[in-house]
C-alpha cells in the first residue's frame, strides 16, 4: 500500500518492518506490565491513557529510526500520515491491553477461587479434627463398653452411667471455646468425667477435689481443666500398676485462680521429655491465646507426684 504512494519497495518494507516491529515490542511491554500489575476495574481510563502514551512514544521512536535513513519524500509522506499511524497504533495497543487485562483478570480469579477452596478445605479439616478430639473417641467407646457390661449384671448402675455420659457430652457440645464459666460449674462438669472414669477403672482410681466454697464464683474458661485431668489420669493410670489418686485443688491468690492437679507417676520409666505431658500443649496454647502469656501453665515433679498448675488471672 505504501508502495502505491510512490515509495520505493525498499523503503516501504523498511517502514512496515520498523512500525510493526515497534508495535509488537510495545504490545509485549504492555502485556508484561499487566501480568504483574492489574489495575482495578474502575481504572480503565488509566489503561487507555497508558496505551495512548505508549502509542506516542512508539510514534516518536519509529519516526526517529525511519527518518535517520530516509529521503525527503518519505518525510513528507510520514508527516501526512502521522495521525493515521497514531490512531492505528493506539487501536492495536488498546486491543492488546484489553485482551491481556481480561486474560490476567480471569487467571487471577481462578487462582483466587482455588485459594479460597483450599482455605475452606483446611478450615473444615481443622474443625473436624477439633470435633473428633472433643468427642474423645477412646474414652467414649470404652465407656460404652463398660455400660454394655453393666447392663447384664448391674442395670441400675448402667442407667446412672448413661445419664452421666449424656450430661458430660451435652456439656461439651454446649460450651464454646471462648466462653467463661464459674469454677463451680467447671468442677461439676469435671466431676461427671471423673465419675465415669471411676466406673471404668474400678478401685484403681480415686479422686479428691479440694476447692473452698467461697471461690466457687471465680471465673474460668470453659473446659480448661478437663484435658489437664485427662492427662493426669492417663499419665497416672498407664504409668503405674497400683491404685492411684488424682487430687485437684483450687485457691485464690493475688487475684489469680490457681488450680493444681496432682497424679502419681514412675520417675524410673517416665521419659524426661514426656514431663510436659501429652495433652498439655493444647491447654498451654489456649491460655496463650487468651492472655498472651506462656507462664500460666507449669509442671513440676515432687518425688513420684507429677503436678500441673494452672493460673487464671481474674479480670
Amino acid at each position, binding site marked *: 500500500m505504501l508502495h502505491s504512494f510512490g515509495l520505493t519497495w525498499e523503503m516501504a518494507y523498511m517502514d512496515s518492518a520498523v512500525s510493526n516491529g515497534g508495535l509488537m515490542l510495545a504490545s509485549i511491554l504492555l502485556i508484561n506490565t499487566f501480568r504483574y500489575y492489574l489495575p482495578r476495574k474502575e481504572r480503565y481510563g488509566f489503561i487507555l491513557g497508558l496505551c495512548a502514551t505508549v502509542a506516542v512514544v512508539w510514534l516518536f521512536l519509529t519516526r526517529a529510526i525511519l527518518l535517520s535513513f530516509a529521503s525527503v519524500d518519505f518525510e513528507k509522506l510520514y508527516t501526512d500520515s502521522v495521525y493515521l499511524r497514531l490512531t492505528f497504533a493506539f487501536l492495536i495497543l488498546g486491543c492488546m491491553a484489553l485482551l491481556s487485562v481480561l486474560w490476567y483478570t480471569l487467571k487471577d480469579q481462578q487462582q483466587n477461587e482455588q485459594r479460597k477452596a483450599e482455605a475452606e478445605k483446611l478450615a473444615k479439616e481443622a474443625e473436624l479434627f477439633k470435633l473428633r478430639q472433643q468427642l474423645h*473417641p*477412646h474414652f467414649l*467407646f*470404652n465407656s*460404652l*463398653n*463398660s*455400660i*454394655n*457390661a*453393666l447392663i*447384664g*449384671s448391674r442395670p441400675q448402675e448402667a442407667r446412672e452411667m448413661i445419664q452421666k455420659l449424656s450430661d458430660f457430652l451435652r456439656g461439651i457440645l454446649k460450651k464454646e471455646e471462648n466462653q467463661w464459666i464459674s469454677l463451680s460449674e467447671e468442677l461439676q462438669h469435671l466431676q461427671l468425667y471423673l465419675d465415669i472414669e471411676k*466406673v*471404668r*477403672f*474400678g478401685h*484403681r482410681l480415686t479422686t479428691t477435689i479440694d476447692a473452698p466454697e467461697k471461690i466457687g464464683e471465680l471465673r474460668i474458661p470453659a473446659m480448661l481443666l478437663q484435658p489437664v485431668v485427662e492427662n493426669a489420669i492417663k499419665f497416672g*493410670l*498407664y*504409668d*503405674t*500398676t497400683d491404685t492411684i489418686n488424682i487430687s485437684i485443688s483450687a485457691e485464690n491468690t493475688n487475684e489469680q485462680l490457681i488450680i493444681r492437679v496432682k497424679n502419681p507417676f*514412675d520417675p524410673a*520409666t517416665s*521419659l524426661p521429655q514426656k514431663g510436659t505431658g501429652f495433652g498439655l500443649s493444647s491447654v498451654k496454647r489456649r491460655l496463650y491465646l487468651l492472655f498472651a502469656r506462656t507462664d500460666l501453665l507449669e509442671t513440676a515433679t515432687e518425688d513420684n507426684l507429677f503436678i500441673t498448675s494452672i493460673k487464671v488471672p481474674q479480670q
Partner: protein
Amino acid sequence: MKKAIIIDDEPLARSIVKEYLAFYPQIEVAEECNDGFQGVKAIQQHQPDIVFLDIQMPKINGFEMLELIDEPPAIIFTTAFDEYAIRAFEAHAVDYLLKPFSRERFSKALDKWLSQSATNQQKVATESLLQSAAHSPSQSERIVVKTAGRIKIIPLHEIQYLEAADDYVKIFTAEGNYLKKKTMSYFEDVLDPKQFVRTHRSYIVNIQQITRIDAYEKENQVAILTSGVKIPVSKNGYIKLKSVLGI
C-alpha cells in the same frame, strides 16, 4: 477343655468377655489380668490356648507384653482403638474386637479361632504379628526386656550400644546389660537410624554416646563412648557413621 486368659485394665471390660465366654462350655477362663506384667506371668503359668488382649494398658502395652512371651498363644484383640490404628495388625491376630462389641461379633471371632485351631496356623500368625507390632508408636521410644524374672523398660536414650550374642542381642545401659531374643537386623530396622548406627556386624551404637572416633588398624576405626567403652567400627560402618554425624 481349652484355656483362656483375659488381659484388660478395665474390670468391666473383662467381665463382658467372661460373660460372652460363658456360652462356650468347652472354654474355661484360667485367669484375669489387670496389666501386662500379670499377663506375662499368667500366660507362662497356664499356657492358655487363647488370649483376649487389650492394647492400651498400664506400663507396657499389649504388643510389648507379647514380645516378652517365648511362644505366644493365639490372640484376639479387644480394643477401643479406631480401625486405622489396628488395621496393620489385623492380618496377624485371629481377630480384633472393637469395643463395645456384641455377642454375635464375639462369637464370630471365637468360631473363627475354633475352626483355625484345628489347622494349627496360629503360631506363624502371632510371630508375624510381633514383626508388624515392632513399629507401634510406644516401641519407638523404649525397649521392654525380661531380666531374672522381672520386666524392665529401657528408654531408648539410656541405651549405650547393642552387641550381637548368638541368638540374642545384648543391650548395654549405664546400669548393666540385658538380653533380648532378637536379631541385629531387627534392631537396625526398628531403631531410629538417625540415633542408632550399625557400626559393625556385631554392634549398633547410640551416637549420642560417642565422644571420639580413632583410627585403629588399616581400614578400621574405633568409636569411644562417654563410658570409656571402645566399639569396633568397620569400613562400611564408618561410612554410615560419617553420614549420620554429617562429617
